[in-house]
């Protein structure tokens, strides 16, 4: 911060009538201009236009009376509170597994990263077919072994939402495990050796060494993952399509649903309604990251 201020004061060095900006600063403006143009044309303009579209109170009244909106808001909260915390706990556990020094675990970690490396569309569709009640592999196997028909997985809103959360976890677990692994690897091994000498058990080592050095990272990851998950359109849209009966929508798919129904003002209003959830998270993340 301090550097920026001192550098942006070129008048001090030159004569009062000299150009206000030094040559490097002119170049600086020229080089930053392309991004500013992109930002103005494709962030500032759309966002302002969107807010302008969402200005009518009637849109919010309509949203309030739309049961699908309430359901989507609840689903989003379930997705965030249960889904993300479950994912981060598993990632925390698995990061402890993957830092073990074994050749086979190193190989496994290469395979483990696959869900993150491959695009999500084909794998989500693969899960969707797997869960098909008639021809899906899961129910075929259930029938083969028990002689009973399996459940109609994606036709029950609770199960369908749980499956969407499962797909989300499948996709992003490797990334967060990797990040938490770097956190674990940064802890000095001396601490663990000293704890071993003192006869600490597994849980005590985690409680008094691992967790204190990782809790800030863990919190950052959880918040970041929550923000990104708010925008996770694919896991829900491609698995359940928001169905059955529009009961598994989350806020990101709901906006697109209104857009498809040509109710643009409702789409924007539903996004504006998500802002009280998004902005505090964003503010907190910005404070953490721009230190």
């Amino acid at each position, binding site marked *: 911060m301090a550097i920026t201020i001192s550098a*942006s004061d070129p008048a001090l060095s030159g004569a009062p009538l000299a150009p206000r900006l030094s040559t490097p600063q002119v170049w600086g403006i020229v080089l930053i201009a392309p991004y500013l143009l992109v930002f103005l044309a494709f962030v500032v303009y759309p966002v302002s236009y969107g807010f302008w579209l969402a200005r009518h109170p009637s849109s919010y009244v309509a949203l309030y009376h739309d049961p699908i909106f309430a359901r989507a808001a609840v689903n989003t909260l379930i997705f965030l509170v249960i889904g993300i915390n479950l994912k981060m706990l598993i990632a925390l556990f698995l990061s402890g597994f993957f830092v073990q020094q074994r050749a086979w675990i190193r190989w496994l970690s290469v395979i483990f990263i696959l869900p993150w490396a491959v695009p999500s569309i084909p794998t989500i569709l693969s899960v969707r077919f797997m869960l098909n009640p008639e021809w899906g592999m899961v129910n075929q196997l259930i029938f083969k072994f028990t002689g009973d028909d399996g459940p109609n997985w994606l036709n029950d809103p609770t199960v369908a939402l749980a499956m969407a959360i499962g797909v989300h976890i499948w996709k992003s677990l490797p990334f967060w495990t990797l990040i938490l692994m770097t956190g674990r690897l940064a802890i000095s091994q001396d601490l663990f050796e000293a704890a071993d000498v003192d006869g600490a058990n597994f849980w005590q080592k985690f409680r008094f060494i691992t967790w204190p050095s990782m809790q800030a990272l863990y919190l950052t990851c959880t918040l970041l993952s929550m923000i990104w998950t708010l925008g996770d359109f694919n896991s829900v*849209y491609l698995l359940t399509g928001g169905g059955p009966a529009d009961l598994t929508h989350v806020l990101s798919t709901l906006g697109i649903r209104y857009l498809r129904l040509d109710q643009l003002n409702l789409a924007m209003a539903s996004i504006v309604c998500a802002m009280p959830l998004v902005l505090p998270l964003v503010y907190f993340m*910005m404070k953490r990251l721009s230190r």
Partner: protein
Amino acid sequence: MKLPTLRETATEARLILVGITVLIWTMIPIYHMFVFAISPKEDAFSGKLWPDHPTLHNFEIVFYQQHYFLRDFWVQFGNSALIAAAVGVMTLLIATAAAFSISRLRVPGGRIVLNLALFTYFIPAAFLAVPMYRTMGNYGLLNTSWALILAMVTVASPYAIWVLKQASDKLPVELDEAAVMDGATSLQIFRLVYLPLMIPSLVAIGTYAVLLAWNEYLYAFLLLSNDRDLTLPVALGNFLAADDSPWELLMTTGFIYALPPAAIYYAFRRYMVGGLTAGAVKS
């Protein structure tokens, strides 16, 4: 050789148990896709864990576009590749210039621009998609590749700028000072000093932008609609429109579509892990 103690054996057993669970969990959807891709039509719907007569016939159908759903496969593959490449190049140009300007030239207001970019990065892309769709309509770009390219550049560049700025800050300031003493202009510093030193980060960011664009579904699905303009993921999603869609062909196409990004990811894994995680989370 000393025999492992009971305690050590129990630890190993637990690790192997976790390992097997992780392996099965990770591979299920991918294996399922693979089995479909090598199954003939009659095996595909019988719920077998391995087809009786594995075949590459599905790949042949896809490559020769011998199905109604696949008649534009190569055009769509080309669209995906072209758009991903364009997004990669444009993101690199815009973000490198901005990061150089903010970090090395200390442009006035650079800090504010950086914070605005960071803010954009945190706005979920699915929320920006709705107004973006209308904006592209207003600009008259809807249903052109440019709409998707510009949208993806908008989504990719904030993170790119941020990571590149962090990497730039680590280069010693004496380098620039020495170059200035030798009479180098800003552009010469950019070209001759800055870019060569930034190559690892540039590779990471280029890969990031290319993969982001190649994998994108939502924006492509909103901004493009003519069959011959579509990218592959949207074409895959369109299979769902019909009840009698050929799953084995959809899974084969999906498998082909997933291969290039996986290959790129593994090829540049070293850069990706180092370059991106450093920027993604700073505790």
